[in-house]
């Protein structure tokens, strides 16, 4: 059909790449990597990084064409699927920036409102020795270095690798830098949530109470149904925004922030169901869902939590309108 161009989801060769990366991560221990990472933080650069390097995925340059962007997103999703203790989205986003630094560049997004030179920003995995760059909501990019007391200020159980960085002098970034960096993180979140639902379904099929696997009970089925629905909606928003970034569409930032809104809503739905249906087992360190839940927190709180992300999205729509079947301009400045 001449007009049947519509094709959601990754291209076939990208799906193949994602399968290869997933298999390699599973063979290397899967969730065991994140389970060891807090006790042995060197797992991150000592095992995970060499593994990713051997797969040649750390060299992807996501602003070098749609295929590279898709490939980067696929790798982020695969990494998220095991809550991989390594800043994959940040490393790949960093490849879009030029640097004279000898260290690899890692780029993440911060809320730079009110953060000037010398200010602090919280960054997941910020303790790793990369040339850190921070892109703010403003689109400006600044270098960052560990705060002198960074080790002492490491996060708690819900953000074990969250570290304070000190922000340097910023300069305008390329238009694609902000949406791209933010969206690769959303693909990591997508992978995490897909795994969380898979783990929960598997547990509900195994766990027998009152003589039957609990997945046979309607109350459990409905909870899973709502989680699956939220996840499906996030997945569609994520792929649409990826396409939007790849095409450099004018509204791609709103699309990316919108996808993040869908992602944060799905995270609440999927992980709450995950904990509830795992029962007490879900809190225990032996259960993968516990690790996925804890390690999803930095992605869900940084750079902005759900209410702040919704507000950001609203501001963008009020400023630029919403691109849909009936696009219209909305004339009301925010605030």
């Amino acid at each position: 059909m001449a007009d049947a161009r519509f094709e959601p989801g990754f291209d076939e060769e990208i799906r193949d790449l994602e399968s290869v990366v997933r298999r390699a991560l599973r063979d290397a221990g899967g969730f065991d990597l994140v389970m060891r990472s807090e006790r042995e933080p060197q797992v991150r650069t000592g095992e995970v990084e060499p593994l990713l390097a051997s797969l040649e995925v750390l060299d992807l340059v996501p602003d070098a064409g749609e295929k590279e962007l898709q490939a980067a997103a696929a790798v982020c999703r695969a990494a998220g699927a095991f809550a991989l203790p390594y800043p994959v989205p940040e490393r790949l986003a960093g490849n879009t920036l030029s640097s004279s630094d000898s260290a690899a560049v890692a780029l993440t997004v911060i809320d730079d409102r009110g953060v000037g030179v010398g200010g602090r920003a919280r960054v997941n995995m910020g303790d790793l020795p990369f040339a850190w760059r921070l892109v703010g909501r403003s689109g400006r990019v600044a270098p960052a270095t560990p705060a002198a007391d960074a080790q002492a200020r490491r996060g708690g159980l819900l953000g074990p690798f969250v570290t304070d960085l000190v922000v340097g002098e910023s300069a305008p970034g390329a238009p694609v830098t902000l949406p791209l960096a933010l969206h690769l993180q959303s693909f990591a979140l997508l992978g995490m949530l897909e795994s969380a639902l898979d783990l929960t379904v598997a547990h509900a099929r195994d766990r027998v109470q009152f003589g039957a696997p609990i997945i046979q009970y309607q109350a459990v089925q409905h909870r899973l149904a709502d989680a699956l629905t939220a996840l499906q909606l996030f997945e569609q928003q994520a792929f649409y925004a990826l396409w939007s970034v790849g095409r450099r569409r004018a509204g791609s930032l709103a699309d990316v922030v919108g996808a993040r809104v869908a992602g944060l809503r799905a995270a609440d739905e999927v992980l709450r169901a995950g904990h509830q249906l795992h029962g007490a087992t879900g809190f225990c360190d032996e259960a993968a869902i516990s690790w996925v839940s804890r390690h999803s927190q930095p992605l869900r709180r940084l750079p902005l939590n759900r209410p702040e992300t919704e507000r950001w999205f609203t501001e963008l729509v009020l400023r630029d309108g919403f691109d849909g079947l009936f696009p219209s301009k909305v004339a009301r400045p925010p605030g």
Partner: protein
Amino acid sequence: MEYEFGAEADALRTRLRRLIEEHVPADFLGAFTDDPRDFEVAQAFCRVLADDGLLTIAWPKEYGGRGGSVWEQTVMREEMWAHHEPRGAQYMGVNWVGPAIMKHGTEEQRARFLPPIAAGEVIWCQGFSEPDAGSDLPALRTTATRAPDGSWRINGQKCWTSYAGMAQWCFLLARTGGTRGRRGITVFLLPVDSPGITIRPIKSMLGPHHLNEMFLDNVAVDDANVLGKVDKGWAVVRDVLAYERVGIPRYARCERLLQLAPEAIADVWADLPESQLTRWATALLETRGVRLLAYKVLQAQTEGHTDPAVVAAYRAAATLLDQNVAEVLMDLLGSAALGPAAPADPGHPAARFAAAVEDHWRYAQAATIASGTIEMQRNLIGRTLARHG
């Protein structure tokens, strides 16, 4: 990866919007009103579409259709629903009655029934639900029994039958064998003016003509009006459900109304609390999510690998969207949601918008019930996960 439909589908959308602008009044809210002019608008619009070859855009060329792609069909459904279904009751004829007759009908039935549907001249209603057979459709108890002369006699009661008061034909399910279950059900193509049929409107908040009861008292019909095989009507029902594909594109009207809001209520827009603006913007976002999920399902259907859990997830999300958007829009209206304050000019854009929102809210209450309740969708997802993980 591609999210454009292509030039043909885009051109169709433009053309449909032009036709709607020319032939459908700006305050049209569907054919189900007390104003007979609304019914006439819909009938006339169907003839316009038929003359342009657009009414049966989805039908195969051998039956006078255009063999339109799934994306052209999607554009058609989106534009019609977004603009309050200006085809009125006739959408059912082209969407699933015609295709069911193409597949299961005899040559005589095709020649008899398809041309009037394609010409926009006939209204069909669906005689499925009964007082004790809603979600559990195979529990239907309307019977068709053989009379001594070999013809059939139908007895029973149908309910919730939309369009029955304006239809000429009914696509009716009756039990010809057994007492319950999918076996023993037969499809009859029944003239609504047959002796023994009584139709009584059921007054409801959905507005006039939406819901009706149909009583069948020894209604005579012969074998020429049986669609498919006797006792094997469930095969036809299954196809009918498949023709409906993803059902009504509710997201299209939701998005249109949300997009209209800032201009329609410009007087109060600047004073809305931030929380309402956030609900409005995120509701717009949800329309996109549901729309994209519909497209995913359609794409999978064209490739023949549908996941029933994803289809059900779409249906659940679409109906919840309808209700959430209804609440968001009603809240945006404030007290105007309760009806126009006097003196009101019904032609004013704000009054038109308020009427459309009020209509949407009332209709949205049925979203999670009609065509399969949301509980059924959740059950389906749950069962699929239980089986396949």
